[in-house]
């Protein structure tokens, strides 16, 4: 009954601290043009457009999507905007999938962006996500919340700060292979460990940057996809879920909903042994710790086995299951687009177009998304075969 949908084109801007040379619509168009070029399509072949961007306080414009209508080729077409915080890009891709799988449209363009560089302080904008009555007074912010998760993991599983640092070293090194990456850093474990403590045990080099940038993908129906390209990346499985709002109501070390989301997506994709069946993963980890927690929830390792999993080198670009060959969120974080970048990067891997960061012979890849201090979590599985 379900119809197959594929990604047939991918376009990304470079991710940088501040793009002074383009306006918001121009930034969006840069990614759109590249995605259409990749699919060898013109704007008139697109039936509907889905736009994604996070909190509008970053751009300082309410409904920035409406500003971009003409620039992204949505004029006189079905168009709407999605915003689910950091997961926006993944939610937008899922909405795009919905529109094609529904049979309503054949070719749907999904574009997501953020211009964090327009705002004076990203953290100030993100601080307002916490409940003004119960949570804000504790000084909760994105960094202190993730620090609590780190402490809980260290206590429960005996993870060391070094384990988190290993993730940072690998991500920043992989970024050298990605021409779009924002932060390419040749750093050692020691550099990460000695970087400035922001909220123990989170240090500066455990974090992601704040980036300006946009990403776009073209989705097509079964029939159209094979006509558009010989290398479509088929959407094999997808799922997302929300946890409760209050941070105090969640078990930060045991996010069961992550596992539930993964299980749903694996079931759709027919995956029963993710570590053996997946060839590459792009994980939404705005912090080293947020990547670490996903390994066990995604079934890459045993519960509490994240440290050993890292030590075995499995996630390295030459390893058995490379994680974040693009450099991941730690190397570029255009917030509302970041989760779409994960999907785009896996699509490129499946299509065999990932250039220097290409993992050989990728048949199945996984991308995660996460938003609202990890309240929202998503998984998408892409494959070479329908």
């Amino acid at each position, binding site marked *: *009954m*379900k*119809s197959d949908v594929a990604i047939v084109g991918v376009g990304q801007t470079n991710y940088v601290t501040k793009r002074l040379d383009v*306006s918001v*619509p121009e930034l969006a168009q840069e990614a759109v043009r590249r995605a259409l070029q990749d699919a060898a399509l013109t704007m008139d072949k697109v039936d509907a457009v889905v736009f994604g961007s*996070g*909190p*509008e*306080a970053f751009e*300082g*414009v*309410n*409904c920035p*999507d*409406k*500003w*971009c*209508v*003409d620039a992204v080729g*949505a*004029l*006189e*077409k*079905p*168009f*709407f*905007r*999605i*915003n*689910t*915080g*950091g997961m926006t890009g993944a*939610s937008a891709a*899922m*909405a795009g*999938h*919905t*529109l094609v*799988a*529904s*049979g*309503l449209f054949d070719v749907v363009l999904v574009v997501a962006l953020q211009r964090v560089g327009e705002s004076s302080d990203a953290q100030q*904008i*993100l601080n*307002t*996500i916490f*409940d*003004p009555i119960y949570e804000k007074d504790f000084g909760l912010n994105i960094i202190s919340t993730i620090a609590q998760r780190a402490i809980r993991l260290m206590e429960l599983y005996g993870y060391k700060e070094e384990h988190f640092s290993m993730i940072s070293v690998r991500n920043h090194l992989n970024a050298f292979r990605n021409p779009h990456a924002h932060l390419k850093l040749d750093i050692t474990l020691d550099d990460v460990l000695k970087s400035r403590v922001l909220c123990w045990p989170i240090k500066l080099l455990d974090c992601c940057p704040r980036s300006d940038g946009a990403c776009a993908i073209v989705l097509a129906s079964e029939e159209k996809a094979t006509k558009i390209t010989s290398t479509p990346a088929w959407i094999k499985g*997808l*799922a*997302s*879920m*929300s*946890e*409760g*709002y209050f941070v105090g109501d969640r078990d930060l070390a045991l996010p069961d*909903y992550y596992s*539930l989301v993964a299980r749903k997506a694996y079931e759709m994709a027919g995956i029963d042994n993710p570590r053996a069946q997946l060839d590459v993963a792009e994980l939404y980890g705005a912090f080293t710790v947020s990547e670490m927690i996903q390994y066990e929830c995604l079934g890459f390792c045993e519960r509490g086995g994240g440290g050993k999993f890292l030590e075995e080198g499995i996630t390295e670009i030459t390893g058995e299951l490379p994680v974040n060959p693009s450099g991941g969120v730690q190397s570029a974080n255009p917030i509302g687009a970041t989760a779409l970048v994960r999907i785009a990067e896996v699509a490129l891997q499946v299509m065999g177009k990932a250039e220097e960061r290409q993992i050989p012979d990728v048949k199945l890849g996984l991308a995660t998304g996460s938003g*609202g201090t990890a309240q*929202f979590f998503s998984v998408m599985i892409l494959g070479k075969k329908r």
Partner: protein
Amino acid sequence: MIPKRVAIVSVAQTKYEEAKQDKELSEIIFQVTRRALDQAGLTRGDVDSVVIAAHDLVDGRSIADMVTATAAGAYHKDVIRVCEDGIFAAALAYARILSAIFEVSLVVAWGKASEGAGEVINHLSFDPLYHRPLGLNEVSSYGIRATRYLQKHGISEEQCAKVVVKNRHNAALGNPLAHLRAPVGLGEVLRSKVISWPIKLLDTAPKTDGACAMVLASEKRAREISGNLAWVKGASWCTDSYYMGERDLDELKSLRLAASRAYEMAGIKEPVRQIDVAEVYDLFSFLELMEYEALGFCGQGEGAKFLESGIPQMEGELPVNPSGGVLSSNPKTASGLVRLAEASLQVMNLAEGRQVPEVRTALAHGISGLCGQSHCVFIVGKQESY
């Protein structure tokens, strides 16, 4: 053609009023969601997708869906937020069920204008370079549109005022939920304070607190849930250019395009004859006249003549806004979803004092964006067949 059928199985609305001071936003959302489920005899366990519509700046925090989604029943559910009017969320929910991945979807939207600085937020929707310095906001931009429309077709302020008289009369007579329930006379409207000429205070919609929720289900689930359904026969949405200078201000082109696609899906060739009742987004009095034209109820420039013919009156051939429309209740971001709720109630024969006799087919219309940039049209009907 769309292979599957989707029905609206339940609709819930709060009372619309100036300020719901006794409840915080999440309580309002929770209660209306709860009612929509209870009425259909459903529990949260029956729902597999939640689609909400809201804006961060309006709700007063970043990633506001963290708190609002969970209030709307999304704990451990697939949830997505569109930053458009709620009727666009209903369109996405419709597509989500058509995609065969989901079976039962909750759609929730709300407005709590009493807590926000609506005018400021609205002003921020204009681009910072060209439009914002002109001081444009919702009323002044629609004022420009009204000026152009009235001038082009020789329509008088009095003719516009007749829309207000009709809709406020309908609210007074038949809608206990309406915010403004006092009828107004023609002279009263014409003598009310000029806000942005030719728009006067009583030509504008109020600022309202309130919420609306509905449940959509696949054909199989819908039949199990209820014997009184509103089948979705057509749904389409479309957007116009961002810059007002790029648009033809004397017509609502994107509404015309959205309507024609929705009509095509629903097999409607003669809207006035085939549609029994319409709920349209009458944010301003003159706008309803323009909407008659774009919806094909009459020719270009004939909106006022159509109204004066009596057809859209409560006793007419095609009553428009029996609920009193947006001019009587405007819980912004939900106002379009309320139109769909009201159209569905008409089809279900549950519209009580505002019920139009023997409704088989109803139309609902909502707007998103600036000065009528994006439009969404739904056709719902008693019969499931197309």
